[in-house]
């Protein structure tokens, strides 16, 4: 453990937006060379606290004091906060793909000669030095387009290091990274720790936090709740602190009838959107029974999303047939699928999930506009009733159904989109990563909703990259690998190990075939 010199303390921080108090008296301190985790659900006040620290919310917009090295400081801008050695690395990776690594590191602060001309040599040299601190030996002249997402994230950190910060704030840095990329990033953070740089680390992924950080503090509803040292913490206790109640273990033990085959996909083949020579889904068979939760497991790129989108009519089917109740189903557009009572939940809320300019009510009614017509007029009362009904059923937390969807937390946004699917009164529900970007408490509620829907007789196909989720919820699992069926597991066989075994067995077999 490094020395216990306090580099930063934030005392009695309070902050309100209009009448809504987001931070109600939060205090904490950060030691030199410490990695501190900031935990809490969406809306707990983590981001607001960090925006105060980094000067995005200037002095005067909040109450309380910030002390750096024991001296009270006032930040009226991001620049002033940076000058005190505080660097915030935002959640979204932002790089210029066609600029070189070095240019991306120094963007906005290019080293220049007195004449104002860019000093390229110094820039390349310094960029190399900064990256080697992070454990990366890279050709800094390479365009960023050619490097992986984790390296791009590391470039963003390197950018923050240019100004020699003493305190680094990382907001969900791993949300776009794979496991091995995450490991690389963690090694880099550990290296910075050795250099005496302190880190505040925000993440929803608790395993990561337990792995990486020295100390954890939990915020909830704008209050400081608790602090935990690295040793002797209790994961369940921390989760309870985060969500403010005991977390029940969800288990799919609901007694229900699984009925006849309702959907049958035979030999489904979908062309890769970017490469016509490759089939991203290659002769896949799927059957779905009434009231069943069917898991579609596989690695990224296994063709799971594309299979669902093809069934939903959002991607063209190259070969193969889909049968609904034994009858051949022709779906050319999502509208056809909705007409046949098939609804789809996207994995990317921002891309094709919600309409950011609309409120909760308008987002929910989007699939059923025609059904809400009264003559030629969109019935306001019916729309209102629909939105209120699903807001209540899914316990969506919002001021009213007229709140803009962007004001909601990720979990509540996801619930609105589930409500939007349910409004279409589906018999088949296709869920693509239903708990992506959703915090722990809301995840549990979504699990319960999914099981409840299956009990009501809705048949569900669900994709999830969290195998734990698949094991917990699904009645049967179809494993895909590289666009092909790689096996099927019935309820007793479902386990993370079995799923992974099927995937690797398939890959191995294929490699062998290629060798022969």
């Amino acid at each position: 453990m490094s020395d216990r010199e306090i580099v930063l303390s934030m005392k009695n921080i309070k902050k309100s937006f209009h009448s809504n108090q987001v931070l109600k008296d939060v205090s904490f301190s950060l030691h030199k060379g410490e990695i501190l985790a900031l935990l809490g659900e969406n809306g707990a006040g983590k981001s607001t606290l960090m925006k105060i620290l980094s000067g995005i919310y200037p002095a005067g917009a909040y109450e309380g004091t910030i002390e750096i090295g024991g001296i009270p400081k006032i930040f009226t801008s991001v620049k002033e906060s940076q000058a005190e050695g505080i660097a915030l690395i935002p959640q979204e990776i932002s790089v210029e793909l066609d600029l070189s690594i070095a240019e991306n590191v120094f963007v906005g602060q290019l080293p220049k000669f007195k004449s104002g001309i860019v000093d390229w040599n110094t820039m390349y040299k310094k960029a190399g030095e900064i990256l080697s601190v992070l454990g990366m030996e890279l050709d800094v002249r390479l365009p960023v387009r050619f490097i992986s997402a984790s390296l791009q994230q590391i470039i963003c950190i390197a950018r923050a290091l240019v100004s020699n910060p003493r305190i680094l704030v990382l907001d969900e840095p791993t949300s776009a990274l794979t496991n091995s990329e995450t490991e690389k990033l963690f090694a880099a953070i550990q290296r910075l720790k050795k250099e005496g740089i302190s880190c505040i680390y925000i993440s929803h992924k608790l395993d990561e936090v337990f792995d990486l950080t020295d100390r954890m503090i939990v915020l909830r509803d704008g209050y400081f709740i608790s602090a935990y040292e690295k040793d002797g913490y209790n994961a369940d206790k921390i989760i309870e602190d985060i969500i403010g109640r005991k977390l029940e273990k969800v288990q799919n033990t609901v007694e229900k009838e699984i009925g006849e085959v309702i959907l049958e996909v035979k030999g489904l083949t979908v062309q890769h959107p970017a490469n016509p020579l490759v089939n991203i889904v290659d002769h896949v068979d799927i059957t779905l029974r009434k009231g069943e939760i069917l898991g579609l497991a596989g690695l990224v790129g296994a063709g799971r999303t594309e299979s669902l989108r093809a069934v939903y009519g959002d991607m063209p089917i190259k070969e193969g047939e889909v049968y609904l109740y034994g009858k051949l189903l022709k779906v050319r557009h999502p509208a056809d699928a909705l007409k046949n009572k098939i609804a789809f939940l996207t994995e990317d809320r921002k891309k094709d999930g919600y309409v950011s300019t609309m409120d909760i009510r308008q987002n929910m009614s989007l699939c059923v506009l025609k059904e809400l017509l009264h003559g030629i007029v969109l019935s306001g009362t019916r729309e209102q009733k629909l939105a209120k009904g699903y807001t209540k059923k899914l316990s969506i937390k919002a001021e009213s159904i007229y709140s803009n969807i962007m004001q909601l937390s990720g979990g509540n946004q996801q619930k609105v989109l589930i409500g939007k699917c349910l409004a279409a009164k589906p018999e088949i529900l296709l869920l693509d990563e239903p708990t992506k970007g959703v915090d722990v408490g809301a995840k549990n509620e979504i699990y319960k909703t999914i099981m409840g829907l299956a009990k009501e007789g809705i048949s569900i196909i669900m994709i999830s990259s969290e195998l734990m989720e698949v094991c917990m919820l699904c009645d049967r699992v179809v494993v895909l690998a590289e666009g092909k069926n790689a096996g099927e597991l019935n309820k007793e066989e479902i386990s993370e190990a079995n799923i992974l075994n099927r995937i690797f067995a398939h890959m191995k077999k294929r490699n062998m075939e290629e060798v022969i």
Partner: protein
Amino acid sequence: MNTQSKLKTILRRIMGLNEFGVLVPTIILVIVVQCINPVFLTYYNLTTVLRSASYILLPALGMTMLMIAGAIDLSVGSILGLGGCISAICMVSGINIWISVLLGVGVGALCGLINGFIIAKFHIPELMVTLGMYYMARGMVLILTGGTPVFPVPDSFNNIERATILGLPCIVVIGIVLAAVFFFILRYTSFGREIYAIGGNEDTARISGIHVDRVIIIAYVITGVISAFAGVMMTGRLGSAQVSAGSGYELTAIAATVIGGTSTKGGKGSVIGTVFGAFFIYALTVSLTTMRISALWQDFVVGLVLIIAVIVDYLRNRNRSR
């Protein structure tokens, strides 16, 4: 403190209105100009402003619908010219007035259909397709007329434009009625909601079962029809089809729409804003003259107001996303 905070919420609500950017300046303009020179709010002056504004309002209504859907149409001015020209040619050659009007408007529909079809089916940027139509439609006017005005159109036709209803010029009444129709469509029909959804997020609209292509094509056809109709009326106003009728109107229509608070990014906007935007542009022209400021300043001031409107839109978006 309490009344102050209440005042603040009221102020914030007013500032939050899409039409805010145009409503306040319009009111201020009218009051100021009226104080300086009371001739401004006279019947003659006002009908002049309203009549000119209505000719812009018609294409601007279509433009509003398209811009809410995240699209744009640079060809409305040329379609206006072509519609007026076709109907004039028909009338001059002795075809029945009403059939001539219908043919003029029909050509507008055809132009809109071509615009919409190419944009929707080939996913080509709206700006480029409608720029092509801008040249083609204007070029067609030149080809058909040989570059000279088409006249004489029958007086029975000209009298339609000259008629007044409740003391208002015919075109003003038509403008008001059409604005009400567009307001209704955008606000209270599923088609209108689909327009907003497409402008807000086209991918989401498609996933939600909205036939995006179909909606976009219909929106372009409607815009073509309404623009050509404005052209037909203008022929009646001038007693002839002018080769340059409606040139530059596409930009004025965009200006009126944007000044009226319709977002340049799509998904947001309103017909009421556009009505005031169109009125504002012409009220400004007339006010400059009544204030004895050279009319040469008009374009400059319109441009200035346009930029201010866009900045207001940006600031409001930024506040919302925080």
